[in-house]
């Protein structure tokens, strides 16, 4: 933009025009309209003192400066001792005020400062907005939960894919499931649960009235509830025998309560194909349901030790060497398990459960 202003000045006086006759671009800008415009502009500038000096002055200044420089240079030749200093000063002064580009550090600095303040105030505004936003929303209870409902389900072990594909005789193919499950169930260890959480009465909501910001107690869900799938008796969770355990977990939603007296049940079946592919499934806990005492959830800020209830499915007799698509659904009042686009809401469909057990 500075360059633009400069070329605008070019025809300001006939002399300036003369000077630039050799400059192809600037040759022809000297027509009357421009001259008048310049005169106006100059007049305006003179009335209002401002950051930019009056144009002609600048021009003169420039000329003077060049002249001065020349003089100084002559002087400098006479005084070789002061030459280095003079040159240094010149570099500095050119940095501060470069007559060629009509650009001064001060002015660039000013622009930067102004932008800095503008953006600082913009940042202040956004901070203020965020602050007011946080004032309006509770830290304990989300404002709206309609998007996270109905609850989704997730399985463990989970390793990148929902397909279970392993060879009984090759531990390498199922070892990672076992490790994953073991890791996941660490938090469910009986000792830990007994230490941290309370044993609350089953079959009813564990409602904890009181202030929002009070810490909430959590109900125990012991690893041993999972019986054969707890990994306590069979550390391989049945994978070594071709009877894999899969844990089903319902997504946490603050304040979610299944319809009263009717805990959410899990039931699995073959999704497509022969129903006899799965001959038997054992559920642990045997009720195949998420007990009411684990609800409601009060949010992670106050309900620190909340332990999600699990239902383990033990596929004790599944056809082998063949893909078996399994669908496990949550059943209960208020549970929607047929959302078209989301196969994780209310049900879980395994792409296939393909177990190869060579004998």
């Amino acid at each position, binding site marked *: 933009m500075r360059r633009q202003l400069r070329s605008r000045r070019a025809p300001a006086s006939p002399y300036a025009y003369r000077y630039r006759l050799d400059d192809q671009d600037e040759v022809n800008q000297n027509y009357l309209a*421009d001259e008048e415009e310049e005169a106006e502009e100059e007049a305006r500038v003179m009335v209002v003192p401002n950051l930019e000096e009056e144009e002609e002055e600048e021009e003169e200044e420039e000329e003077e400066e060049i002249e001065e420089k020349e003089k100084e240079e002559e002087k400098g030749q006479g005084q070789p001792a002061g030459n280095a200093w003079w040159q240094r000063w010149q570099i500095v002064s050119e940095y501060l005020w470069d007559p060629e580009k009509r650009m001064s550090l001060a002015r660039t600095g000013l622009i930067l400062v102004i932008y800095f303040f503008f953006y600082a105030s913009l940042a202040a505004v956004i901070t203020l907005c965020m602050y007011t936003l946080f004032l309006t929303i509770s830290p304990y209870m989300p404002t709206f939960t309609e998007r996270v409902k109905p609850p989704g389900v997730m399985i463990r072990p989970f390793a990148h894919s929902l397909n279970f594909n392993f060879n009984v005789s090759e531990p390498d193919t199922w070892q990672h499931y076992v490790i994953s499950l073991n890791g996941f169930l660490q938090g469910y260890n009986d000792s830990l649960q007994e230490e941290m959480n309370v044993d609350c009465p089953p079959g009813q909501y564990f409602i904890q009235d009181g202030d929002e910001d009070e810490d909430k107690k959590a109900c125990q869900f012991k690893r041993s509830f999972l019986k054969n799938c707890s990994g306590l008796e069979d550390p391989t969770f049945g994978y070594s025998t071709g009877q894999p355990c899969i844990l089903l977990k319902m997504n946490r939603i603050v304040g979610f309560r299944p319809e009263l007296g009717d805990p959410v049940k899990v039931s699995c079946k073959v999704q497509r194909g022969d129903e006899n592919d799965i001959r038997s499934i054992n559920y642990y806990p045997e009720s195949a349901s998420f007990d009411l005492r684990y609800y409601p959830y009060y949010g992670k800020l106050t309900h620190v030790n909340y332990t999600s209830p699990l239902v383990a499915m033990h596929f004790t007799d599944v056809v082998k060497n063949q893909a078996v698509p399994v669908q496990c659904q949550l059943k209960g009042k208020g549970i929607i398990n047929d959302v078209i686009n989301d196969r994780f809401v209310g049900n879980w469909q395994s792409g296939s459960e393909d177990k190869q057990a060579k004998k």
Partner: protein
Amino acid sequence: MAKKTLEIYSVELSGMKDIEQTDKGNGKEKYRGLKNCFEPKKNHRKEELTKELDLDDHKLSIKELEKKYGTNIITGLSSAQAAELLARNGPNALTPPKETPEIIKFFKQMVGGFSILLWIGAILCWIAYGIQYSMNTSSSLDNVYLGCVLALVIILTGIFAYYQEAKSTNIMATFNKMIPQQALVIRDSEKKTIPAEQLVVGDIVEIRGGDQIPADIRLLSVQGCKVDNSSLTGESEPQPRSSEFTHDSPLETKNIGFYSTTCLEGTATGMVINTGDRTIIGQIASLASGVGNEKTPIAIEIQHFVHIVAGVAVSIGILFFITAVSLKYQVLDSIIFLIGIIVANVPEGLLATVTVTLSLTAKRMAKKNCLVKNLEAVETLGSTSIICSDKTGTLTQNRMTVAHLWFDNQIFIADTSEDNSNQVFDQSSGTWASLSKIITLCNRAEFRPGQENVPIMKRVVAGDASETALLKFSEVILGDVMEIRKRNHKVAEIPFNSTNKFQLSIHKTDDPNDKRFLMVMKGAPERILEKCSTIMVNGQEQPLDKNTAEAFHTAYMELGGQGERVLGFCHLYLPADEFPETYTFDVDTMNFPTSNFCFVGLLSMIDPPRSTVPDAVTKCRSAGIKVIMVTGDHPITAKAIAKSVGIISANSETVEDIAKRLHIAVEQVNKRDAKAAVVTGMELKDMSPEQLDELLTNYPEIVFARTSPQQKLIIVEGCQMQNAVVAVTGDGVNDSPALKKADIGIAMGITGSDAAKNAADMILLDDNFASIVTGVEEGRLIFDNLKKTIAYTLTKNIAELCPFLIYITVGLPLPIGTITILFIDLGTDIIPSIALAYEKAESDIMNRKPRHKKKDRLVNEQLAMYSYLHIGLMQAVGAFVVYFTVYAQEGFKPSALINIRVEWENSNVNDLEDSYGQQWTWYQRKYLEWMGYTAFFVGIMVQQIADLIIRKTRRNSIFQQGLFRNKVIWVGIASQIIIALILSYGLGSVTALSFTMLRPQYWFVAVPFAILIWVYDEVRKLFIRLYPGSWWDKNMYY
């Protein structure tokens, strides 16, 4: 090479020689430009113009001609010969200028502007899908859809732009329909009427008064034939024709009639010597088509703007592509980011909007009688800094009209306005009674029958220009001239001829008591005076003494000095005893006196300026536009007209005027004192480009007279060399090359020739120079408003771009989708940005200097900075607040969103925890993301309303401009809101569009930001108004 050039231009321009010489002489950079201007055209023009030199048919005798063309002047060509020649030389018609094929025009729209960038986006989409597909055959088709949508957008906007272009060109189609001309030709010894198109070289044609000459013809026999060559030379005076060879130059000799000129009177027989494109007119026309069509200023501006935006898009895109790759994003993801950045950066709807805006203005101008052929020319007039106007027909009415009368020793002024109705001079004097009688009777012109209901001034007259002027003049003042002539029966007549220089007729008077014959005469004043011995003053005959003769001369000189054609009138009552009622007058033996007449008065005629022109010229002046007259007419006439219309203002003088006033030699005058200059073609010929440049620079008021078409071209080029945007007005064929060369050529709709109309960018349907002023005003307004439109459109690009940048760097869930961006750019924002075209001017744009082609850009740094870095960022912040509000209220506080991207987008993670410990499935998150898109969209939309309102003005406060004056803005705002509501609530369930319903309160989250934008901009404008010229003004005013 110099030799060739010389050859080419020697016909009418030997100035080229000087150009070459000066160029060699000092070889300064400066002249190279001008020289270069000529070079590319050389080859184009060479062929035609060397042919012009070869034309020597006017020197040949009839026998030689017959031999040359194998014809016979009695029997004509045979049909077979004619057919053969027709097949060989083609029809006798001008080849229309080459049209770009429609399909190419169409494809140009498809690849022009931002289309290339969008094509890249679309192709990247498909490439991305290709990569996805190669990795996983079941990958989603989202990218394919997006690519198709982008392609669709390009094609639709392309079709739209093409349609708009085509619509404006179609208006022209009506002009191209010419009535097929007929020609009377002798073939096979028979007179036949054939379409003029079928004429061939060697045909013998007959021409009568009123005909258009159907081809270039060598006249063989002529009876009192006069032609109007004004379309060729600009000279409105009728030219007599004869069959003798009178001049070496084919243009000057009298025995050649030119194609498309009109035969005014008399009859002639001629031999066709050139047809179609080989005629002189055809050559000029092809000279015009040889002149390259330069880019219009607005096209340059738009290109500049496209470059800026594309530059920003590509550089940010590449920068972030590299950043993304170095941040260990997959290449596929990086490509998708790139697409997003491109789509966000490109204002897809803008070019279509600009087209609509231009065509709206074009429509508005068409209503005001400015027909715009080329949409982009709409703005050109606004940036025009020099108008080179033809005189005849543009500034003047192109018809002789009585301007002054002199009788009773007084000069009277006649009304020369278009309807002549207001003749206020003193008509009570007895002299006037006599004078009016002479004017009426000594006149051979007649109205064509059947025009009783046509206003007098518009009636068609058979007769030459001066006689027509006199006829109309007397008809207006005296009433039915034919009736008066009938009452004063004409008994004898000597028509005007160039040797006598007078016209005489003898009448019986309508006074039944007066049996004397009245002899009336008119002619060249000095000839008339010679024949007079008395002069009529106040109705009384007085002897013609020295004083009265002196008075006559003074008046004659004065009128003549104004460029007017002066005629003298005298009469003589023949004594009844010598010339009884039965006396037979014989014009050949002149058996009646031809001296001792009584001088009655003088009458002068001029082709008067149109009444609206002086005002329009003043307006152009105040708008900083220099008006130059370029005419083929005489310098004196040209100067007189220039003075009367204000092209040379009342108080400015030429060098010659000063010399005359101070009684010193022209050379002694200080050239700086003169403001005006009258330059003839001869002088121009001797001028170097340097001198021309100086001339154009130093004199604000210039008249070029006696110029040839090529010289007009040179003048236009000279003006363009000064970086001026040049408008040329003209009507004749001779103007067409200059019209084409000009940044904007303006042709006259009524009097304009087809060649001129073809070459022009704009047509004044009412031939009114004042319409140009309207055009300038509209052009300037549209430029200002386009600035506003672009500023409005660019602003939200930042708000669309920031989400992508933050998405890449901070890892938030994507705040706004590509499709959603398209819905803003091509949905909600379209009508508002068009609405800005209806904005009224902020201040008097006609008191402003024209914008400088190179300095006052459409999109300047200030505009881009203010739109991008100020308002744009504020919008982005506002939209992000809406986005964060939605996420926070749903459970994801901003802190939880940081770097969540990878998990968020992993469709296998179905228990992603939010800030409250709730777990989200992938689809639930996706839906929330769409809600975020919608929220961000609404945030931008709400702030765009504020943006629209602030863009109404650039300097004034909104309240000064009036919030409700432009109703269309409110239509725009309403459309914005309605489209957003439909998208959210109506199409919220269509998942492909990724819009969702939004709680009503979210629509208001961005409102404080909208208000902030408004306030901020008001403050900006306030400071600009308070401190004009300050740092703030220079950096914040766009």
